[in-house]
């Protein structure tokens, strides 16, 4: 029986205003070669100017991933020739990466598991290349975009684990606001290293590397495919070749790209144009303070407030949702009620209409006000559902809707008492039936009162007051 050993290299483009070493705009656009400068194109004589925001954001992620961080900023050159690399070298971090020996804690099937982060470093992205039949197109918009590379330990054994890890990682990236992390825009790309070993083996098997995977779904398919492919090879008594493989999506297979990946010598050396800058403790502390409470911690907190574990997970999946919920909590809503409304009604609306959570009209304050109306019994739960739907659809506050629809419940005991007595006066026969012991006639009378109030009277109060009044007769 063979088991898979999987390691990941995750590349994430940072959402800085400008590029890593130039003042070109760092913004995703479909118009090729519009966000470029002499620095991005490596004209002779240009010099790099590191982006402080990118330094800060990558340190932030390193800290969020519990990495050891260095006391200096130092960049290296990675030398290789490729058409997508204008300088002929990439400025990256080899000697002194921003993160080392970190980990990410993930809850899998109810237990918390730690996954090792071997290294995290900051570098610049390459140009985007599109290969046509007889020519290749180059788009330098991406050249020089700040890129964080996260290298995990070879600590995964199956595809679901990998996907859960990636989802959690993406979530943390978004929580830290360092990247949009959209796979569609190529902002998050994954390299998978995978090998197979027997339980009794003491060394790892020969690995294959599959580079530049754009979607988590493909990651899953690739791992499934590679496990099958490598297992079959090993079971035949043959050897897996160390190589880089490429995923062919329409055929759902991987094919060999080049062998002996370790044979490439990148001739790393320290970048001479960027002086070494010290990172003070105070500076690092200030970055650490900017890290928000992360999903796992929030999830634990919500569960302790009585939220169902399933709902707690739903709430933290998107930072905007979680932040919305946190804000509502500050308005002293009932944690369980608020969670219910968000996870069912609000998220239901968002999903059905395929809109972004950030685009909804409802604010945490509106939700809190609506919940207050329910608890003070000025509207019924049934009515609240309508209020919520209208608030999201028609972009009106709950107060406006309640007023417009005349939904305010009559909860004033005196007013209800008045209606009750009127109904009792009008139905002496039924009162007599009640007095003769057939007390379930009260249901009919409640109905009459509600009808008389045009449905606005608070049913519980009606029932209470009706009982009192009828017994007083």
């Amino acid at each position, binding site marked *: 029986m063979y088991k898979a050993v999987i390691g990941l290299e995750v590349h994430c483009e940072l959402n800085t205003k400008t590029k890593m070493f130039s003042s070109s705009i760092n913004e995703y656009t479909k118009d090729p070669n519009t966000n470029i400068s002499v620095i991005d194109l*490596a004209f*002779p004589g240009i010099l790099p100017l590191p982006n402080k925001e990118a330094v800060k954001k990558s340190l932030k992620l390193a800290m969020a991933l519990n990495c050891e961080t260095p006391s200096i900023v130092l960049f290296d050159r990675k030398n290789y020739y490729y*058409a997508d690399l204008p300088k002929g070298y990439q400025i990256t971090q080899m000697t002194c990466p921003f993160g080392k020996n970190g980990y990410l804690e993930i809850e899998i099937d109810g237990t918390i598991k730690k996954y090792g982060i071997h290294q995290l470093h900051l570098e610049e992205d390459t140009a985007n290349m599109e290969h046509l039949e007889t020519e290749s197109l180059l788009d330098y918009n991406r050249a020089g975009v700040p890129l964080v590379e996260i290298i995990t330990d070879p600590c995964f054994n199956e595809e679901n684990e990998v996907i859960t890890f990636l989802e959690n990682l993406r979530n943390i990236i978004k929580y830290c606001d360092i990247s949009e992390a959209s796979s569609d825009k190529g902002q998050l790309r994954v390299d998978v290293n995978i090998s197979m070993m027997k339980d009794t083996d003491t060394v790892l098997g020969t690995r294959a590397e599959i580079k530049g995977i754009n979607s988590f779904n493909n990651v899953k398919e690739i791992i499934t495919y590679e496990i099958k492919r490598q297992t079959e090879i090993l079971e035949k008594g043959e050897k897996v070749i160390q190589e880089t493989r490429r995923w062919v999506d329409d055929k759902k297979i991987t094919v060999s790209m080049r062998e002996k990946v370790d044979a490439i010598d990148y001739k790393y050396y320290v970048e001479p144009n960027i002086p070494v800058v010290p990172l003070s403790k105070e500076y690092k502390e200030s970055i650490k303070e900017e890290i928000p409470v992360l999903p796992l911690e929030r999830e634990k907190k919500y569960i302790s407030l009585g939220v169902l574990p399933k709902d707690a997970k739903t709430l933290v999946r998107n930072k905007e949702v979680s932040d919305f919920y946190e804000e509502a909590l500050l308005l002293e809503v009932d944690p369980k009620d608020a969670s219910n409304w968000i996870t069912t009604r609000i998220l239901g609306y968002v999903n059905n209409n395929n809109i972004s959570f950030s685009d909804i009209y409802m604010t945490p304050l509106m939700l809190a006000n609506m919940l207050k109306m329910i608890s003070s019994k000025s509207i019924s739960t049934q009515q609240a559902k309508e209020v919520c739907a209208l608030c999201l659809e028609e972009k009106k506050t709950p107060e406006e809707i309640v007023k417009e629809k005349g939904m305010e419940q009559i909860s004033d005991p005196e007013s209800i008492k008045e209606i009750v007595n009127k109904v009792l006066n009008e139905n002496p026969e039924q009162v007599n039936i009640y007095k003769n012991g057939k007390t379930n006639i009260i249901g009919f009378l409640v109905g009459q009162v509600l009808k008389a109030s045009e449905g606005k009277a608070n049913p519980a109060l009606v029932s209470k007051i009706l009982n009192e009044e009828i017994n007083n007769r």
Partner: protein
Amino acid sequence: MNITEMKELLDNKTTTSLKLFEESKKKALYSQEKINSFVTIMEDFTKEESNSLLNGIPYAIKDNFSTKNILTTASSNILKNYIPVFDSTVYKKLKKAGAVLVGKTVLDELAMGGSGLTGHTGAVKNPWDQTRISGGSSAGSAACVSEGVVPFSIGSDTGDSVRKPASFCGVVGFKPTYGRISRFGLFPFASSLDHVGIFARNVFDIAAVTDVIKGFDSNDMTTLPDEEINYTDILKENIKGKKLFYIKEIIESAKENESKEIIALFKKQIEKLKNNGIQIEEVSFDKTILETLFPVYFIISCAEATSNNSNLTGFIFGNRMPGSSPKEVMINTRTEGFSEMIKRRFVIGSYILERENQEKLFINAKRVRRMLVEKMNKLFEKYDGLILPASGLVAPKIDESKEPDKLSSEYLILENHLVIGNFGGYPSITLPMGYVKDMPVGINLTCKAQADALCLNIASHLEEIIGIKDICAGGRKDV
């Protein structure tokens, strides 16, 4: 005419900057056949208004400084049609100061070399004797100032590329502290050693130009913060009590008669300087370390050069050659674009950076560099400057049968010591000290890092005491 003289004529309206430009241009065109110092001579006069001392003064700049809309070739076939889209900081500052560009000067291909023979437009010849080299790599910049085409020019200095040709051509050549002048827009050779340098025919002019082009540049992270000082203001300050030293082992390494003649001249000048109140001492320096100067320089510079020039692929700019794949385009462009010597340096540089060699060659070379700099820094605590002959040779004869810049199996420390200035990023200046074989010979002064003002101050006194100033080729002033 030097800058001051031109300035006077401009101020009293005896001439105009246009006339000065036309005259320079005429000389440039006329001199081309004789010394071949220009890649490009400017057609048109363009000038910005300014109050600077350089306002209206014609000058030349080495063809490895990026000049927007003006051909910039680095004297290499791979860039023979390259027209930059941006200005180097140095060029921009000169433009703003009202200086008038006359031409772009020939260099050894990509600034690698010391002969001036390897540019793609042909060899630069020594204005004093056209059978001799000008030295390099800032060959054209040295030659055109020596020829009297312009009063000053800009060069670059990675090993001695300003200070050696200055010696061979009988002009003043200065490179300030690393970071004093922005390298933005200077085509890189070896980033940790590259300096911008200046040629002129006297120390005052050097100071005047440095004042204009120095300073912090937000485009170059390695530039130093601005100093509140004008170098032209401090040149005459008293240097009483200043102490210089020369290195015994370097002086004693002279073997050939020519070198011995130069050493004799040097010693004569040292005596003269001492008689004028400057203290000069002989210091002994570990010869083994001195013998590493060239290998260490060669290792570091080739390694950095191979990486720095990896952008020359023909994709975005440069002389692109056809090919059936991106890789082939790149290979064909580079094969066609570089001369053999350049390719050899890249192969050596690449070898040095390889994983299995890097520790032994590159990292060790950097260690030796640091060790040497630490030793020098110690000496600079005691002394104000290091004084030595800039070269143990007068400009060598052009020998077409001999490959320029051939590696030697001997340690030529008298020829290679100027690189100390690049290792430590020290301000270093060469100025004429006399003649051997009817050719000019230079003396070099190197001071501690950031002591640019002191360096120019002492140099100004040396110039006065030695008594050679404002000479053009052939215009020998005997001392």
